[in-house]
């Protein structure tokens, strides 16, 4: 499925037609409309908002200051449901702070956040049960084994024990962690940590999945596994919001992006729209955040041939 997708994208880039019409025309790789709602196919995916479906996330006037430093300066954003959404920006742009506030784990100074129509701060029950989060860094009880961690997280979410164990075993199997399920998470490698974090985030079948740098420090094999799971998830109607600063990855995975710089959203929309006339998303991004392709002129001694 992944290969087909790649072929589709390459074909699209060479062709004169809009990129994203091509791969979806035959229902691949996203298969078909999610069972939940009438999500349009083909060219319909380009337009927003989608008819008949509430936006996955609505953010209005979000502010956060840490002392004199403004981390998030008035973010307005509406993320469509059922998409694979990338939140991109340079380091320190406020991505993590924004995601923390959107998921109800950091109190904003000002502004409102609604997740699938539920206000994160006024209706935490409605919001928290509908979101799954993979935080930056490992913020899990790492002295539990992978299997215990899932059992614990699922029960904290109030799922019945037998169901938690069934889902946990399946997730461990799919994420290639079965062999290490009795190892303590503290002894896991980076890729395994991301995968167990993803499993914990998916356990309660959330409607929206927030992932903070899910591919950072992950080897290609684990990355492919994570990718497969995420694609399957959006495929069946889930929304993925993930932050990253690897543009190639965002370009290959996402169909919708929001670009953040210095605490503000500087561009958002379907990926082709954001990219505009620029040859790649990377170029579009660099011009959006105001960084030219600079460097290397003064390092005339660099070359490794002499000391």
């Amino acid at each position: 499925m992944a290969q087909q997708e790649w072929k589709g994208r390459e074909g699209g880039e060479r062709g004169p037609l809009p990129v994203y019409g091509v791969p979806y025309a035959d229902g691949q790789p996203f298969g078909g409309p999610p069972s939940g709602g009438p999500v349009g196919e083909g060219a319909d995916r380009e337009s927003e908002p989608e008819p008949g479906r509430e936006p996955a996330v609505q953010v209005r006037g979000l502010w956060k200051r840490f002392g004199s430093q403004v981390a998030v300066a008035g973010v307005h954003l509406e993320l469509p449901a059922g998409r694979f959404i990338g939140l991109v920006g340079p380091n320190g742009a406020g991505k993590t702070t924004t995601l923390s506030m959107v998921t109800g784990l950091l109190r904003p100074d000002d502004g409102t956040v609604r997740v699938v129509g539920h206000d994160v701060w006024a209706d935490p029950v409605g919001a928290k049960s509908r979101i799954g989060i993979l935080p930056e860094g490992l913020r899990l009880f790492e002295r539990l084994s992978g299997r215990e961690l899932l059992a614990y997280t699922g029960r904290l979410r109030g799922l019945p024990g037998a169901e938690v164990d069934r889902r946990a075993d399946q997730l461990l199997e799919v994420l290639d962690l079965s062999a290490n399920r009795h190892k303590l998470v503290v002894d896991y490698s980076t890729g395994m940590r991301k995968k167990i974090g993803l499993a914990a985030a998916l356990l309660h079948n959330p409607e929206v999945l927030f992932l903070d740098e899910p591919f950072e420090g992950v080897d290609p094999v684990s990355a492919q596994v994570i990718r497969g799971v995420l694609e399957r998830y959006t495929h069946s109607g889930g929304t993925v919001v993930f932050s990253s600063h690897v543009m190639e990855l965002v370009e290959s995975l996402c169909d919708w992006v929001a670009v953040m710089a210095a605490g503000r959203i500087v561009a958002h929309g379907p990926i082709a729209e954001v990219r505009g006339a620029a040859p790649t998303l990377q170029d579009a991004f660099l011009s959006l955040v105001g960084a030219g392709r600079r460097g290397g002129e003064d390092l005339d001694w660099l070359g490794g041939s002499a000391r």
Partner: protein
Amino acid sequence: MTATATRPPSVVPVFVRLKITLIRNGLRQSRGRAAGWTAGTVFALLYAVGLGVGMASLRHNHYGPAAAVTVTACMALGWAVAPLFFFGGDDTLDPTRLAMLPLRPRPLVTGLLASSLIGVGPLCAVLVSAGAVVAVAHSGPAVPVAVIAVALTLLTCVSLARAVAAANTRLLTSRRGRDLALLSGLFIAVGSQGISLGINSLSSDGGLHRATSIAAVVRWIPPAPAVDAVRSVSRGSYGLAAVQLLYAACVVALVLRWWHHSLVRLMVSPDASTLPAGPAGADRDRREDPDSARRSGLLGRGAADGPARVAALLLPRRLVAGRTGTVMGRQFRYVWRDPRSRAAWATALTLGLLLPVVAMAQHGGSVYQCLWSAGLLSTQMFNTFGLDGSAFWTVAATTATRRDAALELRGRALAMAVVAVPYITVVSTGVSLLLHRISALPEVLGLALAFAGTLIATGVFIGVRFPYAVAQSNPFANAAPGQTGVVTLNVLGGTLAGVVLWLPLLAFAVALHVTGRHGLLWTVLPVGAAYGLAVVAAFLRFTAPRLLDRLPEILAVAAQV
């Protein structure tokens, strides 16, 4: 290449400057850290000066030489074991950080040695050894020997610390090693009790004579011979002094050689992070499988292992169902698996047992000493969320209703109570049996249970209201730097509030004593148990909505690194 023809510049000044910069930048991190460092430095220097002056004042005392060599030898021992406990504290201690640099071991040793002579620790060592030589120097020729002795002592201490650190880098940089080092808190706690018993026996008749006979051996333990050489010179036995100085110098040379050897080995062998985690690891997993499968199955079944399972059998089902049981299971796993919790619990449990026993051994003791065991254990509740660290994130992300919050708190309080109640009962019974005061047991037990109850109750509230970040980088510091205010509020406020809440029951027991109704003293047990339970229940109810409201604030505190 041509560069090898010319002698490369010495790296010693570079290392010295690196060390100074590291110290300075450590202070720059935060004002609180700078204040803590200053206070620690002042305290250490005062202690060193006190020790030095103390020894110098024994100059004309019969026991002066014995004290000088004993203190010197003890100081060297301290330097030798310090890196095992405080490895993470000094970046320059870890030679693997320098492995990428094209440095030969010999200049590396020289540079590191020079840099490790800088700092508060070496200054303290100089002050202490100066005091030691002053205590034994009584003649003119002794003065230069004394200077050499101080230098040799300092070199021995510093190079010992470095050599031990280098030889154990593998162990100390691994997780298992760091976990082990954390248990040292227990040794310190138990050791301090042993030392206090030792001092007691020394201060009794003939104790100091014993110390003198021990000193006859100690003065041959390096670097004590260097200090003893000063005494030999003062007494005119120059030959002996020469032998002693030579011996001390040889020891320094041997230690340096050992260090050199370890460094060479470290530089050429792969570091722990590059060792393959493949077949061997998988193999070990498979071997551990049956056992850990059994362990992990327990959380899967709703309750948890060991104590939690017993609790599940004894406590009403309604109480431990759902989230409460899950939380308890995790708490118990953490007591065992998280080195910090394990050290704290082991220390509390051991000290709670030791204090009444030591008191009994020393002066008869009192049955009321059992209150220590209740107090030490229950204060573990005070920073329950701060101890979670960034993992509190999981709790915050899954707590949505007031009921979730209430069950989370109840799980934590119950996990504590499940251990505290039997433990307090056993200690109280044991102490009253040993003191032949079994008749006082109901009263003591009632007081202790109520005390545990009020402390757990205030701990629940304090843990939500005044959590503080636990230092992640330094496993020995309880709190991360810069939080003195909150920590004071947490520990002092929690303890005081717990004691105040407990006073009514104490008043009740005292009233029974004063009015002479000794026949009714047994009622303290049921009244105390019920009172403790009621206070905990009331605080759980009161605190649950506050936990729900303060989740982001607690997370912000707990997750700070």
